[in-house]
């Protein structure tokens, strides 16, 4: 047994987190900044933070993740990190020539109170930022929120640093996709194109962290929202913000700065959330929904009706990030599955409310916890007390799945041991089919591997 010391009895903990269902803010900021074209993320803190974040993102995407660090020493921790950041900005522009540096802070620089705004202003005054180049930034104290909060903060930082208005309103719709995979961002762009809607998607990590192998390394790959595109976001007719935890702050910032109204939506995971997204996009842009979407939707519904017997009544344990878990839970409800245990390390009351919204009467019967001590240790204990038919979550879930003999579907961050998430979306109707395929594979592989020889079936 891999997790042999996990007792069934749940004892209350108030200080100890065991096997978290979250990580810290700066990694989210680094990921978001990669979604800006020719932008080098920069970690203002000890160099270990940057090394850990780059490693984690690299393991998840199997692609280059470039970023700089201020390489704090004990001296900078005592006297402040201004000298390090000024030096870093200068060295980065001269040596690596990005268009933009996106600075995020760490628990170290936050604890000592470094004022990044002031340091960047000084860098500009000192002539360390070449003409036409930009340094954008945000605060990401690791002791607040989670990796999702860091993503959200950098999205707001991108808006503060790069959004502008040329003065003429357009029919373009801004879409903030939240912390989703490059495949999902690509799919959202495809959906908009199919609908004939002009959008600006940001951040956009497609063609950045799923870059092609051509034998030529590009430090700044082709993808990412461009400065020119960001400079038009203030003129857009509306912003659709997908997922309150990752995207609301950026949308709100655009509203404050440029009076671009926004609508909060769930990430379009599954049938109902995609229905709402498609309709919202059509409303925002003032276009009709093309018939092709009826067919796309129909294909998803077809798979559900064809295979409904395998979904009905199955109990699911889930863990991950709020913006994904809420629409995913709703999708499970659409499939007549029973979300049984749900855990997210990311704090915030909106999570419980979101789960309540999508589960309705069932809510009272579900184990739901997020924030402090809402960790995978607790989830495992719940699972020991009431065994689900399936676990959905990031790679760390495989230890529980193996110990308990429960089928397991990988979704979320990080996925360290499988590929596919970069290339095959889980958003939209087509993404819904991929989720179904994964769930069915997990169930049916389990059945094929464990059923008696007498019960072995050719057709399922």
């Amino acid at each position, binding site marked *: 047994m*891999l997790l*042999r*010391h996990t*007792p069934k009895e749940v*004892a209350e*903990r108030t*200080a*100890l*987190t*065991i096997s978290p269902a*979250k*990580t*810290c803010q700066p*990694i989210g900021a680094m990921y978001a900044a990669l979604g800006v074209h020719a932008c080098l993320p920069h970690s203002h*803190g*000890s*160099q*270990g933070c940057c*090394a*850990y*974040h*780059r490693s984690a993102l*690299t*393991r998840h995407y*199997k*692609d*280059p*993740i*470039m*970023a700089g*660090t201020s*390489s704090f*020493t*004990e*001296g900078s*921790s005592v006297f402040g990190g201004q000298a*390090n950041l000024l*030096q*870093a*900005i*200068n*060295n*980065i522009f*001269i*040596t*690596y020539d990005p268009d933009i540096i996106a600075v995020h802070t760490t*628990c*170290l620089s936050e604890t*000592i109170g470094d004022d990044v705004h002031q340091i960047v202003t000084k860098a500009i005054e000192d002539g360390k930022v070449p003409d036409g180049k930009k340094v954008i930034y945000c605060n990401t*104290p*690791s*002791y607040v929120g989670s*990796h999702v909060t860091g993503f959200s903060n950098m999205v707001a930082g991108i808006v503060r640093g790069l959004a502008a208005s040329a003065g003429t309103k357009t029919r373009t719709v801004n879409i903030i996709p939240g912390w989703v995979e490059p495949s999902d961002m690509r799919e959202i762009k495809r959906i908009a194109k199919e609908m004939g809607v002009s959008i600006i998607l940001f951040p956009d990590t497609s063609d950045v962290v799923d870059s092609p192998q*051509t*034998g*030529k*390394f590009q430090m700044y790959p082709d993808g990412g929202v461009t400065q020119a595109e960001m400079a038009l976001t203030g003129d857009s007719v509306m912003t659709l913000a997908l997922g309150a935890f990752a995207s609301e702050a950026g949308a709100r910032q655009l509203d404050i700065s440029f009076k671009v109204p926004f609508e909060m939506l769930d990430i379009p995971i599954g049938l109902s959330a995609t229905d709402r997204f498609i309709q919202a996009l059509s409303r925002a842009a003032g276009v009709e929904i093309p018939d092709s979407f009826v067919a796309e939707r129909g294909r998803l519904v077809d798979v559900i009706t064809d295979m409904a017997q395998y979904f009905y009544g199955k109990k699911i344990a889930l863990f991950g990030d709020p913006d994904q878990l809420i629409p995913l839970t709703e999708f499970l409800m659409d499939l007549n599955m029973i979300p049984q245990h749900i855990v997210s390390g990311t704090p915030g009351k909106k999570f419980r409310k979101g789960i309540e919204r999508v589960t309705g009467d069932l809510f009272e019967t579900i184990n739901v916890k997020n924030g*402090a001590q809402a960790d995978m*240790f607790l989830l495992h204990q719940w699972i020991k007390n009431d065994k689900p038919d399936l676990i959905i979550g990031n790679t*760390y879930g495989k230890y529980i799945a193996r110990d308990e003999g429960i089928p397991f579907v990988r979704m979320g961050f990080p996925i360290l041991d499988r590929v596919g998430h970069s290339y095959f979306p889980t958003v939209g109707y087509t993404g819904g089919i991929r989720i179904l395929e994964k769930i069915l594979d997990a169930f049916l592989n389990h059945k094929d591997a464990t059923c008696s020889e007498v019960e072995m079936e050719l057709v399922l």
Partner: protein
Amino acid sequence: MIRPSNDLPDPAKIKEEILKQYPPKVARKRNKSMVVNDSKLNQEIQSNVRTVPGIITQRGCTYAGCKGVVLGPTRDIINLVHGPIGCSFYAWLTRRNQTDPGPDGENYMTYCFSTDMQDDNIVFGGEKKLRQAIQEAYDIFHPKAIGVFSTCPVGLIGDDVHAVAKEMKEKLGDCNVFGFSCEGYKGVSQSAGHHIANNQLFKHVVGLNDEKPKGKYNINLLGEYNISGDGFEIDRLFKACGINIVCTFSGNSTIGAFEQSHMADLNLVMCHRSINYMAEMMETKFGIPWIKINLIGAEATAKTLRKVGEYFEDKDLQDKIEEVIKKEMPAVLKAQKKARARTEGKLAMLFVGGSRAHHYQELFKELGMKVVSAGYEFAHRDDYEGRKVLPTIKVDADSRNIEELKVEKDPKRYKPRASEEKMNELRKKGLEVSDYVGMMPEMADQSLIVDDITHWESEKLIEYYKPDVFCAGIKEKYVVQKTGIPLKQLHSYDYGGPYAGFRGAINFYEEIDRMTSTKIWKKLKAPWLNASAESSLRAEYVSA
């Protein structure tokens, strides 16, 4: 592609080209960390100094060296990280240290423990939460030991983890609790963390159990972390020779083994950088001599086993060792010959760790490959130039902040295991007794040594040398591969291995043969792009 050796670019020119790109101040600093090797000169390489901010380094932090590297592989200590959640999360199962607790043994390595500090802990202090977290860990798991690791904010807000650890140790009674001041900002790399880990293990654990080990030839293996089961292969060989490993620091280790480790008669030091402190302290306090060894590469493995035989001066042991080597070598040579048919003459580069960039050159030598450039991520001058330079290393402000334990002879338990005369004799035989010759003397002249290599430098080195394989870590993996060159990870082994010992050597030969012969590297370009490149070349030729 097989290259004639004279086909290599001039490293001095490469260095000049590389430095041109940097701001003058950075160029001056990096200049001292890049050396064109010349065995006739006593060359100095700048190392273990601060990384230039913004330069894109491979390096991590002190916490990573302490918790991740040294303490991470021990299965029955609860490693509780005091800080915001990330530090503990990123060090959770990511280093591939295998461990074998058996069906009923304790194993906490699959769990991740953290105090998950919040903003109110930063403002009002986190000691109360730490105390409570230790209590909760004890109540749930009843472990033999809990190690507490400080992350950056802990040192800044002044939480006294050592006082809390001491208090909780007394309170709990049957659980050893000890702290590590391994804040990420200390030192200049992971290296400071190794030192801190050595110190605290030595202070709080080593020497707690005086029980005599059962073996005839009792040794400790220091600086072996059982990545992908390296340690299991080594255990197999030592067992076959009749050598008893009392404790490995720290692959597949237990706190019990640490406690008894001072009862061994010889320390074998594998990764000099991360563990030499422990070897020295054990020698001073308990009289256990140490020798530098290497178990990466078949020849190196055989040499290491023979060193142990010589040390114990026992004919039976030496015969047994020869028998084991004789039994193992045919399979090794067969695999070597097979791989070598394709690997001979190919080029490799290694930029990794504090000893691996040296050790793995053995394997490339056995494959007939040439290492044209190499360097460490976090090593010191002694790892490059040999311990002979230790007296000349200037201790700077960053190193001075790392505690040097004052160790003295244990009044009761100090027992010199071998006379000074004998040790000198062994020294003469080239046993590297209390010594390490370092990487540079063992590298060819004109190879380019680069310490703490930057992204810019590795990109240019690849462009100039076009190596057949590049060795580094996960952050560099896909960067290098996007240039069309395979990268072998020497931290995680790309989820392959083991590579230590004889079976490990066979695995490595096969792996490098596979990597450098994989067809896909020749198909990176779309065929129509290749065609157009060829036709434009033809057009030029015609017009000329």
